[in-house]
């Protein structure tokens, strides 16, 4: 997994590279990061993945824990920037809509790429729909 080149700067373990097309917004990276440099949050119908490069210590522990391979060890090392805002890397990812009721869910559209079976796909619905369907089943059982 670790890039191993043979000479000079190309070999550097830089800060992690993030691929928004693979990220599911699970937040594992922000949980394991020892310095809290990654923030993953839901705002509206988008997931924001924010990386503070100045705080990152380039340990790449997040890369070890990303379940989807959205993170990889990057080559960029330097964090020189002419304004503080440029030290933040912000990626937004669309949030999945509940296939049943259309409300936003807490994970991104990319989840579908990682879901293998049809049953798993069918079970994808928002919390509220899940509870409602459960209640319906309970109701049915009770009537019987």
């Amino acid at each position, binding site marked *: 997994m670790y*890039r191993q080149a043979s000479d000079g700067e190309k070999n550097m373990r830089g800060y992690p590279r993030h691929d928004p097309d693979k990220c599911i917004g699970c937040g594992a990276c922000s949980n394991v*990061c*020892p310095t*809290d440099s990654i923030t993953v949050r839901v705002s509206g119908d988008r997931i924001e993945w924010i990386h*503070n490069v100045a705080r990152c*210590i*380039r340990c*790449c522990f997040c890369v*070890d824990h990303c379940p989807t391979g959205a993170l990889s060890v990057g080559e960029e090392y330097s964090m020189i920037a002419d304004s503080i805002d440029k030290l933040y890397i912000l990626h937004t990812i669309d949030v999945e809509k509940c296939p049943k009721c259309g409300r936003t869910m807490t994970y991104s559209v990319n989840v579908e790429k990682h879901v293998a079976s049809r049953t798993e796909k069918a079970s994808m619905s928002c919390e509220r729909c899940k509870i409602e369907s459960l209640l319906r089943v309970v109701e049915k059982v009770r009537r019987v």
Partner: protein
Amino acid sequence: MVIKILEECEVDPQNVSKIGPDTFLIDLDKRQLRDVIKCLVLDKGLHFSTCLGVDYSGLRQGSMALIYVVTRPSSKIIIRVTLNENESIPYVHDILPAAEWCELEAMDLLGLKTSLPVEDRFILHWGLPSKVQPLRKEFKHNTRLSNMVSCRVSKPEDFVEVDPHHPFFYEHEDFLIKAIGNRIVDVLYIGSYINRGIEKVGESRLKMEQVPFIAERICGICGFTHSTAYCQAVESALDIDVPERARFERTLMLELERLESHLLLLALIAYSVGLRDIFLGLLRSREIVMNACDILVGNRKMYGLNVIGGVRYGFETRQIRDVKELIKKLKTSLKILDALKESQELRKLKDVGVLPKESAHKLGAVGPVARASGIDYDVRRDLPYAAYEEVDFDVPIMDQGDTYSRIVIRCEEVIQSVRIIEQVLNRDVLTKGDLRTEYYPAPGKIGVGMTEAPRGENVHLVITGHDSRLYRWKVRAPTYANLAVLRAVLVGESPRDAPVIIASLDPCLSCTDRLVMVRRT
């Protein structure tokens, strides 16, 4: 063997429990502490490593404890004295000067009281109000102190300052040197300007598995030895076996780090005595070592390799081959060390800054400083860790205890390190096998991890807590122990020699003060 020594020191065997293959835990009564420490360290000649205070209120019912760590070849002895809240604490630093700093630090950080008249603040800023006791469990790690500090810094008038900071490495510390004519009569060290409470962060904010990366950043030169010592402490507390491959990888990186650290110091010493060509030659050799690290772990410093139970990634045959080439190159370029040893400029440092063996033992000196004074103690050989049991190496010892031998002994160690690296690189296990072992956290376990850092014995003590967090984490960097000898080596010398004498102790300030800052957004 240990039990026998303990019996001779009148420790009740019922209070002794074996908590690891080489670790003993003794619960002592407060009144017994002084006698036992005196007997173990001063009469039996065991090495005093460190001491710390623990606020046990989160694990047991509201009590404090003082923990002393004493080592002898092949075993570590942890002495625990449990105290009630607000009880005045016992102390040993009047008979054993090596314990002075750590006892004062425990009093400062936990607000413990003793019958001795000591100042409130030792590690923390003098202006902090006395209710700030950061290592108590009720003190939150993110408390803002900025509006509590009132600056009042005053210094005695008859001191001459060599420099506002380190006279050699330009770091954050003061050496106040008092001289009469051309003779130093007293030295005062003022440090801990950059203590930011890494131990508190490790105990409160971080999970156990995240700490190795923060521990590695305690020091910019010998960081890997800190993360290894931390991992070993947790491994010994939770009884984790480290796979052979991981142990060899650790050994390899630890030795590369030692080379890197020693070569930097030797180069700077050559520069300071006026040997510019040797300075350049040594830095060029150091560059080879840095490149080797770069090939192996993708970074010149901060290897990011250690995790609890092993290492994160393995090396490939291709990398090992490249590194072997580099080590061959390094061996040729290290011939320059002979020129340094033989040089007139260095010979002038003979009999300058002498540290006699007895004071080295009493003051708790470690590493090359102690070995140059004839103390035969090397953690790699006496308390073997990683894969040091399986490689051959010599531990150079010298008796003079002067600045010259402290420098020469490092030249010898460089040669030994290269020898270890060559043996490790020839092992097949480096490229195949398991990398790490799974583990299950359990609360309330104590473990001590020790490594021989480039500057000497490095001690990490952990007490595990709930939620796979640490309950207490203590870092005792080698310089913390070695700075205690300052007065012994400097008094009586000329102020002109002070910088090179201080440099020969190889002080590392960020280790001593444990600088790391982690902040929540």
